[in-house]
């Protein structure tokens, strides 16, 4: 039986390589938030309260573009809807835990923590190697693997808070002529371009981008939401058309 402590520390160990990528993000967020004119306290408060990198970046970007609050909230929450996927995927493993632990772990649920934790949960237990894999699936949550989740999540949380705080402190001294606000769209480019693999994904991204440019005249910056929904619709449509075409081909063979 693996102990709580070793699970906790192996969670920390496994998230370390990912932190190398998280630290620059945290620093850039802090600098960008300050150059967007967000007060230091508010910028750090967002790291505590929201604790979601991409939503924080988008919020800063939209604040500096003068977007109405309702649109900012809608966009940030839309972006965070993907966490429902993570939540659903981890739920079977966490269902036996008391609610207060579930609540704590839900707060620490991020892209990075999810990625390492779900991989860990899907590995068979070292101490339970004589139990059939089916039995482990039926009775998950016995091994203290939630300590692994807690270790990874807490480590990421600490580094994120520290990194954004340093970025905020540095950001106060950066002159506007450095154009550091441009790091935000660059960050988004770095995130989204490698994620585009299928034609449907390219269609979704392209449609959303073009519609956003064309719809910039819409009142209240509604263009962003319209563009996002149009892009999603385009991607879903193309995907279902492609699936159908394959289905027809298979039928002919």
């Amino acid at each position, binding site marked *: 039986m693996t102990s709580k402590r070793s699970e906790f520390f192996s969670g920390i160990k496994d998230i370390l390589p990912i932190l190398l*990528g998280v630290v*620059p993000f945290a620093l850039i967020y802090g600098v960008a938030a300050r150059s967007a004119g967000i007060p230091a306290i*508010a910028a750090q408060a*967002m790291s505590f*309260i*929201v*604790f979601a990198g*991409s939503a924080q970046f*988008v919020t800063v*970007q*939209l604040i500096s573009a003068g977007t109405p609050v309702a649109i900012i*909230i809608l*966009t940030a*929450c*839309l*972006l*965070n*809807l*993907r*966490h*429902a*996927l993570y*939540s*659903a995927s*981890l*739920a079977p493993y*966490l*269902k036996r835990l008391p609610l207060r632990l*579930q609540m704590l772990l*839900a707060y620490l649920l991020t892209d990075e923590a999810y990625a390492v934790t779900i991989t860990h949960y899907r590995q068979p237990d070292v101490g339970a190697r004589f139990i059939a894999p089916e039995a482990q699936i039926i009775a998950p949550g016995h091994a203290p693997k939630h300590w692994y989740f807690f270790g990874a999540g807490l480590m990421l949380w600490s580094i994120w808070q520290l990194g954004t705080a340093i970025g905020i402190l540095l950001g106060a001294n950066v002159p506007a002529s450095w154009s550091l606000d*441009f*790091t*935000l*769209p*660059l*960050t*988004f*480019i*770095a995130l*989204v371009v*490698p*994620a585009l693999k299928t034609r449907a*994904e390219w269609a*979704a*991204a392209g*449609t*959303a*981008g*073009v*519609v*956003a*440019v064309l719809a*910039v005249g819409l009142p209240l910056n509604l*263009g962003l939401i319209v*563009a*996002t929904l149009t*892009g*999603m619709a385009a*991607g*879903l449509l193309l995907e279902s058309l492609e699936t159908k075409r394959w289905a027809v081909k298979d039928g002919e063979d």
Partner: protein
Amino acid sequence: MFLCIGVITYAIRLSFIGLLGTKEMPAFLLKALRFVPIAVLPAIILPQLFLRGNTLDFSLANPRWIAGILAAIVAWRTRNVLLTIVVGMAVLWGLQVLLARI
């Protein structure tokens, strides 16, 4: 505003773990959710690159779209976040200096 985003984000994260248990998510919703980041990010990026104020600016006097496209190529070829940002900023600064001299 931050509180609002934070509370909703937290509710999303807690949704299945704490409340909905192991209920299955509808297949269509699963598919649609995958497209959210892929659609929302370009919708934020492209206006940043190609618009000045509210008008399209494809001219060479607008260094942002050139820097953005080069950064996108770097992101596509290398998948390296930091390198993408460094190249994008370097191109932007280079062009800004160049434009100031013309």
